[in-house]
């Protein structure tokens, strides 16, 4: 029973006010040295079988079709 | 529903999971400490000394019976010298034969605690302190261990982190303050000191001898705790990660649940009574000696259990995957041999506390105190049932009889609402149901109610507020109504306080997030800032719904044979025990440990539930319905059963669960959101389930109505609940708590605002107008209210910041309702009887100002602890004041909510009754708003102004003053004013009307000018300051439609309302002429609207992108 992670992030050129709000907050909380934060989503997909190439392909399709909006987001798939 | 509480179960429920692996793999984990995540948080040095510690624990246990001797007092030196005569300390190394010193030395010798050296003088060590009373706080960092404190010094102040181990505290000193993390192990506490506070991250603690009572929770990461000797009573739960715990000796009573990952537990000696369940993953448990009675079930994954000696009575079933069990010996003989299986139940059965078991084991001790029940309440349950309750029954009674669900402290006072209820045909459903219902004419009925969700909103502002909205909306749904609008009354600490900046945005986002997603417009409310709410924010949410007269539903279960259906979200571990435990407690340090998750709401599911219910009601599929709020299934079943034919049979196995490991007690107490319960005739069940399926809402038949007069519940085929439901739902305890005016009330009332310096000229008056308009309570709340959808459903005629929110019910006739939600904690603090009446007066006045006829009342009574006689007195006074005023005005209380325990420590919030008034517009097109939009309209002041500043915004904002008496109540004048306003609106005589309340005439003029975008030229009658800022009741400022002046004057004469010409609408300034106290007359000041707007909108940011 394999687990695959899909990380979805806004494309770099898209403004991320949530990430900016977080980055602004950090110095107020006493954390220095952080120049930027971008916020994304992480999906954990549990497969019935092993994470072979066919399964990973399917996960990539799932990512493209549903988990990410390809207009503004990009994704990465990796096996846990 | 009542207020929902956060999950307070000590162990993290999420960590209870079933092991899927075969039984003996845990052994591999346990053998090696390396990489064991449970030991990671502990200082590795301590981990290495684990073996020594366990041995020392045993040794300490053996020595615990010897009389303790005060520990060595280190040499005096360093900072924060307490005021005491130092006694000459014994030389280091000559420490007395004392458990703690040995123990600490053992640690030191093991090198377990770097930096710890016993008996060596370090800078900062303090001389011994005897009999001098509490010592001052020892400042942080590196002051080193503190000297011994001998008897009768009383509780000691907190020792901050980094001070290292503390010396012994001898008996008679009472509980010690919390020790912050990093201080290392504490010395032994001798008997008689009472319970010790929680010790965070300090490493293993020394032995606690008998007589100290239960010890505080040990937070995770502290490593194994030393033995607790007999007589200390049950010990609190040990959270995960602390490793195996030492033996508990006899006489301590049952011990709390041991959470996962603690490893094997030591032996329990005889006389301790049955021990609670050991959850999976803890490994084999040691032998239970004779005389302890039957032990709870050992779940799978724990490995073989030790021999059970004779005389323990039948043992619980051992579930699968535990491996071979030794035989039960009759006489202590050797077990039959490893590998041999005695009779072990095949299926993973959980041994439940059944009714039969309860009959057979009448003397089994039960944790009713931990569930918040008192001794006499527990005895009463035993009398009702004629036996001890099962644990499921105990769960039901404890939660249904909690303050929160049973209103035991408030019932005697709330009775007045029914006793003094004014006669009115408009009341279709009175108090006692989920919400009251009033007839608004044309065959329409309206239901409305306000409820609190205060404590959860402090813990988790977003979810606390969100689930508060969710809960009140479900109450309205349960009456058969379609919810059509919400309102919220919010109170926070000072606007600039850091914690307010934590709580406020979360609460507002939660109210908006849930209400907007449900598609309910937010049409009004209030936001108030006051220091007394700093750690006790108030979140009171109101919902209003509409239905036709014949669509009203009741929360009753009539008709034996009808089915009981639970529908909505699945049931999970949300808020288990919360209802009875946290709701009836105040916030203190220990509540930090109760911080974990509040219930998380799913507004999408509730929106779908609304639509589903509407279809179910429309097809007449339901004979009784109840929403699930506090006390979940317990409450819904007991209340439905009690209100119907009195009997119900429920099979708890059928309850759809989100978490399959829930025990039946937990299912009963779960406060999972978005659930409803319906009673359905058998022939209609299929259609009911079909509609739920269409909306993709889980729905399950969980039981049926009977005529036995008993609520009977089964679990795994056995009966675990068999009670008369009315005893839980209706016959809770009724307290008549002592009540007496707060000790400081006399002084407070004597401290009148009369001596406060008043503005004496035009400039000072001008400055005061602006000062008030920009102050937190009077400033614009657009930043908040623009986060709420006011338009959805398309029937919002008026919303904030208007006097009242107005929704249209019937687009053809224009029938609609107006609602206002108001409170004033400062008035009530000065005089709770008047304060409650003043809050009612304000809401009543606000509704009438729009032209609506006030009809009915809902209330949310927010008070401190009812155990404080001063608070109880305030409550009694407020309830009486409200009941009397409602009776006089002819507007009955239709329902409401009480929230007690709003206090941190011993200081309660100001008594804060929040009152909602509902009024009717026969035609909403005739409503009057507060905007000055008609250039040239005459402005008139209705009502009488007196010199009244007690509790006023002026005194509060300018001087921080609270004292004297609040404005005098005048209900006759309120009624007269309302009559004028309603008649004038009906006849179209007014272009604007604004009631006067906080901030008096000044604030009313500011708000109306800004809202309409037109200024005004005003000539103030009487003393300018008094006329501008007094907060006398029963007053309004109106803009009269040109030509209507004579008729308005006639109405005022008819109803006996004093009327004074004030000025005229127009221009772009607020220009004021009048007479100062010194007698000067003339133009006092002029403020451009732009300046007013900038000041008024500055405090909370206006929304900008």
């Amino acid at each position, binding site marked *: 029973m394999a687990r695959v992670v899909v990380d979805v992030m806004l494309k770099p050129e898209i403004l991320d*006010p949530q990430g900016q*709000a977080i980055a602004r907050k950090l110095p107020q909380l006493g954390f220095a040295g952080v120049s930027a934060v971008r916020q994304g989503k992480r999906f954990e997909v549990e497969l019935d079988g092993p994470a072979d190439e066919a399964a990973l392909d399917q996960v990539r399709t799932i990512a493209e079709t549903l*988990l990410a*909006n390809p207009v*503004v987001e990009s994704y990465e798939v990796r096996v846990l | 529903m009542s207020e929902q509480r956060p999950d307070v179960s000590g162990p993290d429920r999420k960590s209870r999971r079933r092991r899927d692996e075969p039984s003996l793999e845990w052994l591999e984990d346990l053998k090696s400490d390396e990489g064991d995540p449970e030991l990671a948080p502990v200082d590795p040095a301590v981990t290495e000394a684990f073996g020594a510690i366990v041995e020392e624990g045993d040794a300490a246990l053996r020595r615990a019976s010897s009389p303790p001797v005060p520990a060595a007092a280190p040499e005096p030196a360093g900072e924060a010298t307490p005021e005491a005569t130092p006694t000459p300390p014994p030389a280091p190394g000559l420490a007395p034969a004392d458990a703690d010193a040995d123990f600490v030395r053992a640690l030191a010798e093991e090198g377990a605690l770097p930096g710890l050296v016993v008996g060596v003088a370090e800078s900062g060590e303090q001389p011994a302190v005897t009999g001098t009373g509490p010592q001052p706080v020892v400042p942080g960092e590196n002051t080193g261990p503190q000297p011994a404190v001998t008897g009768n010094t009383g509780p000691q102040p907190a020792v901050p982190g980094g001070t290292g181990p503390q010396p012994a505290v001898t008996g008679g000193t009472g509980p010690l303050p919390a020790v912050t993390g990093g201080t290392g192990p504490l010395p032994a506490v001798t008997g008689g000191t009472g319970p010790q506070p929680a010790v965070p991250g300090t490493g293993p603690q020394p032995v606690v001898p008998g007589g100290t009572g239960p010890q505080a929770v040990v937070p995770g990461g502290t490593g194994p705790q030393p033995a607790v000797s007999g007589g200390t009573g049950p010990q609190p739960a040990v959270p995960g990660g602390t490793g195996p715990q030492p033996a508990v000796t006899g006489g301590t009573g049952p011990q709390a649940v041991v959470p996962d990952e603690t490893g094997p537990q030591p032996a329990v000696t005889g006389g301790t009574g049955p021990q609670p369940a050991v959850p999976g993953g803890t490994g084999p448990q040691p032998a239970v000696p004779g005389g302890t009675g039957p032990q709870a079930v050992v779940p799978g994954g724990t490995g073989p259990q030790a021999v059970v000696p004779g005389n323990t009575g039948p043992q619980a079933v051992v579930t699968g995957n535990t491996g071979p069990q030794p035989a039960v010996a009759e006489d202590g003989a050797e077990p039959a041999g490893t590998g041999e299986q005695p009779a072990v139940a095949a299926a993973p059965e959980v041994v439940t506390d059944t009714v039969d078991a309860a009959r057979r084991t009448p003397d089994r001790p039960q944790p009713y105190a931990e569930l918040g029940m008192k001794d006499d309440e527990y005895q009463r349950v035993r009398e009702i049932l004629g036996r001890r309750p099962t644990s499921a029954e105990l769960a039901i009674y404890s939660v249904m009889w909690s303050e929160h669900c049973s209103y035991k402290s408030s019932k005697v006072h709330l009775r007045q609402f029914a006793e003094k209820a004014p006669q009115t045909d408009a009341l279709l459903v009175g108090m006692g149901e989920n919400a009251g219902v009033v007839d608004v004419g044309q065959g329409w009925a309206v239901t409305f109610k306000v409820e609190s969700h205060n404590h959860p909103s402090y813990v988790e502002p977003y979810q606390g507020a969100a689930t508060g909205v969710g809960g009140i909306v479900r109450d309205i749904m349960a009456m058969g109504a379609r919810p059509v609008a919400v309102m919220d009354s919010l109170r926070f600490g000072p606007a600039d306080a850091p914690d307010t900046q934590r709580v406020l945005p979360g609460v507002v986002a939660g109210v908006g997030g849930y209400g907007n997603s449900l598609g309910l417009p937010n049409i009004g409310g209030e936001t108030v800032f006051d220091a007394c709410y700093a750690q006790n924010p108030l979140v009171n949410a109101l919902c209003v719904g509409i239905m036709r007269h014949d669509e009203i539903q009741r929360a009753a279960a009539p008709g034996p044979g009808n089915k009981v259906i639970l529908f909505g979200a699945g049931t999970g571990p949300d808020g288990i025990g919360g209802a009875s435990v946290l709701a009836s407690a105040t916030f203190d340090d220990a509540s930090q440990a109760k911080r974990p998750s509040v219930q998380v709401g799913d507004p999408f599911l509730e929106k779908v539930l609304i639509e589903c219910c509407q279809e179910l009601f429309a097809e007449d599929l339901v004979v009784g319905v109840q929403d699930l709020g506090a006390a979940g299934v317990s409450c819904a079943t007991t209340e439905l059963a009690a209100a119907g034919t009195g009997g119900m049979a429920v099979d708890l196995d059928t309850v759809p669960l989100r978490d399959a490991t829930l025990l039946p007690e937990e299912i009963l107490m779960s406060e999972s959101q978005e659930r409803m319960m319906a009673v359905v005739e058998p022939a209609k069940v299929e259609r009911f389930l079909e509609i739920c399926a269409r*909306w993709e809402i889980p729905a399950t038949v969980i039981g049926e109505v009977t005529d036995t007069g008993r609520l009977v519940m089964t679990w795994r085929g056995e009966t675990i609940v068999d009670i008369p439901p009315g005893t839980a739902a209706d016959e809770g305890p009724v307290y008549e708590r002592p009540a007496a005016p707060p000790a400081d009330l006399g002084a407070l009332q004597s401290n009148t605002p009369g001596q406060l310096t008043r503005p004496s000229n035009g400039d000072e008056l001008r400055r005061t107008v602006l000062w008030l308009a920009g102050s937190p309570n009077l400033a614009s709340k657009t930043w908040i209210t623009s986060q709420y959808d006011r338009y959805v459903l398309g029937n*919002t*005629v008026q919303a904030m910041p208007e006097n009242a929110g107005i929704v249209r019910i019937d687009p053809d006739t224009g029938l609609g309702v107006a609602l206002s939600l108001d409170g004033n904690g400062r008035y009530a603090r000065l005089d709770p009887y008047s304060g409650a009446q003043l809050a009612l007066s304000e809401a009543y006045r606000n509704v009438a100002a729009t032209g609506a006829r006030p009809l009915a009342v809902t209330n949310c009574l927010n008070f401190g602890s009812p155990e404080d006689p001063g608070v109880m007195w305030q409550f009694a006074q407020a309830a009486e004041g409200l009941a009397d005023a409602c009776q006089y005005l002819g507007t009955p209380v239709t329902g409401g909510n009480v929230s007690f325990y709003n206090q941190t420590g011993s200081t309660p919030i100001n008594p804060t009754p929040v009152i909602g008034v509902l009024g009717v517009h026969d035609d909403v097109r005739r409503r009057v708003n507060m905007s000055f939009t008609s250039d040239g309209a005459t402005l008139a002041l209705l009502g009488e102004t007196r010199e009244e500043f007690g509790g006023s915004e002026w005194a509060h904002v300018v001087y921080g003053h609270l004292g004297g008496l609040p404005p005098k109540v005048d209900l006759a004048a309120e009624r007269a004013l309302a009559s004028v306003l309603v008649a004038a609106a009906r006849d179209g005589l007014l272009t604007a009307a604004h009631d006067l309340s906080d901030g008096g005439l000044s604030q009313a003029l500011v708000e109306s000018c800004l809202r309409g975008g037109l200024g005004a030229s005003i000539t103030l009658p009487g003393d300018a300051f008094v006329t501008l800022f007094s907060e006398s009741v029963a007053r309004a400022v109106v803009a009269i439609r040109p030509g209507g002046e004579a008729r308005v004057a006639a109405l005022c004469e008819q109803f006996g309302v004093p009327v004074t010409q004030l000025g005229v609408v127009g221009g772009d300034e607020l220009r004021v002429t009048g007479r100062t106290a010194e007698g000067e007359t003339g133009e006092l000041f002029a403020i451009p609207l732009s300046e007013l707007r900038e000041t008024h909108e500055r405090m909370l940011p206006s*929304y*900008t992108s």
Partner: protein
Amino acid sequence: MDAARVGVITFPGSLDDRDAARAVRLAGAEPVALWHADDDLRGVDAVVLPGGFSYGDYLRAGAIARFAPLMEKLVDAARGGLPVLGICNGFQVLCEAHLLPGALLPNAGLHFVCRDQRLRVDDADTAWTRDYTAGQEIVVPIKNRDGRYVADPDTLAELEGEGRVVARYLDLNPNGSLNDIAGVRNEAGNVVGLMPHPEHAVESLTGPSTDGLGFFTSIVKRLVEA
């Protein structure tokens, strides 16, 4: 002559469906309630995708509704020229379904915003905006959390170059939308997406104006003429 029939699709979580129906009725057409799980558009002449929180906005606003069975039929019909108006959540669904370019992201201010918003109608030629004149300024409520319109530079250039921006924010951009874009249309002009809620500006009693009615009277006229 039979009244024009305008379908309004209800997804689980749709909130302004009834209000859209009311606006259709006020404009003189017959609203037809359509259910997301059906596979039949019931022969309507135009479709409105209303505002709300379909599927709770889970995953992303409109991301799940876009896969509803009825959406398949709708996409086909739209490509065939059926007039479609997506309001707020409806706009989000249309973008997710790629019937319109770009995407809607969380408001730049990170808060839900409800305000009476001044707009300028930039394209008065679509089936939904013919009753306005180009450049007309109107006041319509906007109320949403994820209203920031974004598109890549090429797409933006295309939209602007082809005059496919239907409406723009005036005075104040409430959500950070690129180029102050409040609404766009597809190439053919039959599909329009709009963030503000015209259905809440159709009665002076309950809205800031009646400026929103034009979106609905436009389609009625167009259908009646057709």
